[in-house]
């Protein structure tokens, strides 16, 4: 299956979509088989090859690599969209460890290279919807967060997962000014963290994460606004109470803890009904849960999403 794409992407930078589809089918098959063995059930949206079945739509063309890596919100490197690409070379993604601790029977620290080996990376093509009303489609390389969490065996009092970004103004010049209370912290409810769509990404476009995209490891939660997908993680903590997520603490009336993509709940300063897909001139309607409602809406059954935004 070939899809016409703008010719400003260097062909060396992208993998042809047909290849992605094939890989995806391969991955689906492997994953479905694995899941079937493990859980005794095939997870339906992975097993399906119908492009409309949830995670990718026919009009979701991959956002060019160059845009994905040059237009970023990563305030640790500056508040301009181009700042991360300009300054992220100061980050040293090796050596790097991620400590997983808190309410766990077997807390431990993972070396990033061990992580690559221990959790075989899969490709996941997800829509990314920024709270600023723009969006991308990114082929991530990563693994389900729940695979990592199951290794440390959360205790029954683990209700939330808290993530923390590296705090080192030497490597992250944006942290030299207190634009936000550093370090950046994000959090998920346990069921959100255990959801199969929630991944830890180690790469994108078939290569290791560029620094400006959150090297060496970041969270990706495709049905939530982008700021939930915390970058350059050094610590994951299983906790009893709702984590103090940075933007939520900074401006609680503008950025909720849940931050589920919701076209019906506007940001106080702008509408969330539409979004501009990077690379497109005309805006498109924003989808509830960023189009992943079939998979995740049940997590929020009975919740008033207007109040718990």
């Amino acid at each position, binding site marked *: 299956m070939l899809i016409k794409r703008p010719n400003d992407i260097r062909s060396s930078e992208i993998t042809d979509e047909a290849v992605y589809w094939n890989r995806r089918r391969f991955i689906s098959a492997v994953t479905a088989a694995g899941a079937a063995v493990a859980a005794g059930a095939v997870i339906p949206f992975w097993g399906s090859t119908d492009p409309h079945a949830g995670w990718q739509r026919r009009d979701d063309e991959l956002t060019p690599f160059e845009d994905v890596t*040059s237009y970023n919100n990563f305030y640790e490197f500056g508040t301009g*969209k181009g700042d991360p690409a300009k300054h992220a070379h100061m980050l040293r993604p090796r050596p790097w460890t991620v400590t997983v601790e808190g309410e766990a029977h077997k807390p431990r620290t993972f070396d990033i290279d061990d992580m690559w080996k221990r959790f075989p990376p899969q490709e996941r093509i997800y829509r990314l919807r920024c709270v600023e009303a*723009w969006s991308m489609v990114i082929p991530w390389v990563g693994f389900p967060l729940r695979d990592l969490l199951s290794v440390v065996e959360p205790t029954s009092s683990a209700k939330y997962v808290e993530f923390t970004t590296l705090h080192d103004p030497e490597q992250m010049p944006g942290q030299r000014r207190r634009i*936000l209370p550093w370090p950046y912290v994000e959090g998920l409810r346990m069921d959100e963290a255990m959801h199969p769509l929630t991944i830890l990404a180690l790469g994108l476009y078939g290569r290791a994460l560029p620094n400006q995209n959150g090297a060496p490891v970041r969270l990706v939660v495709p049905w939530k606004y982008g700021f939930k997908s915390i970058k350059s993680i050094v610590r994951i903590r299983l906790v009893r109470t709702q984590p103090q997520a940075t933007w939520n603490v900074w401006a609680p009336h503008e950025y909720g803890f849940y931050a589920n993509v919701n076209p019906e709940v506007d940001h106080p*300063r702008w509408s969330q009904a539409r979004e501009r897909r*990077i690379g497109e001139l005309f*805006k498109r309607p924003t989808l509830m849960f960023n189009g992943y409602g079939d998979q995740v809406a049940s997590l929020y059954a009975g919740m008033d999403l207007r109040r718990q935004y």
Partner: protein
Amino acid sequence: MTQGQWVRRVVRPAAVVAALVPAVLLLRAVVTDNLGANPVEEITHRTGFAAITLLMITLAVTPAGRLLRFGALVQLRRMLGLFAFFYASLHFATYALDQTYLSGLGVSPSAIAEDIAKRPYVTVGFTTFLLLVPLAVTSTRGWVKRLGGKRWQRLHRLVYVAGAGAVLHFLWLVKADVRQPVIYGVVLVVLLGYRLVGARLGSRRAAPRARRSASEPTGARG
């Protein structure tokens, strides 16, 4: 050369070129497809920056003329103000297009009106733009005569309100990093403070007439 000649032959052409730089750079970026991943946002930001910057420069003309004892600089004020209005118009046009046509709503003044009413930073931005309209219209010599110097001047003090509106608009739209809008705010406060203090000292010296006339578009001094 007299001051007036300096301004006409050297300073004004240089100022025209400088004021056109943002437009030329923008045009070049459009033609060469160098507006980055989000061109509409980039155009909005660039035109907004140019507008608020030129507005501040316009406000700085009179104080600069006094401090440098170069009263003829005031001849640049109208042109710079019109350039600020030019960029503000492009800024508003980009926003309006983005809200309607590019949002798939076709020609829809109501969509714009709704957004203006709903979002405080847009309300302030739009009000600021509206304030600049009568100032641009009455910027000609003919209008100065028609209104009379005093009334014209009172009307044009609105430019300070517009300056404050532009800063507030900027301040309310940033997410966390307020450094840039604060810098513009400080510049505005200094410029306004200078005028207020100047006016008070002027009235104490009981020579407000002379001062006022110095800021009329004539003052060519040797």
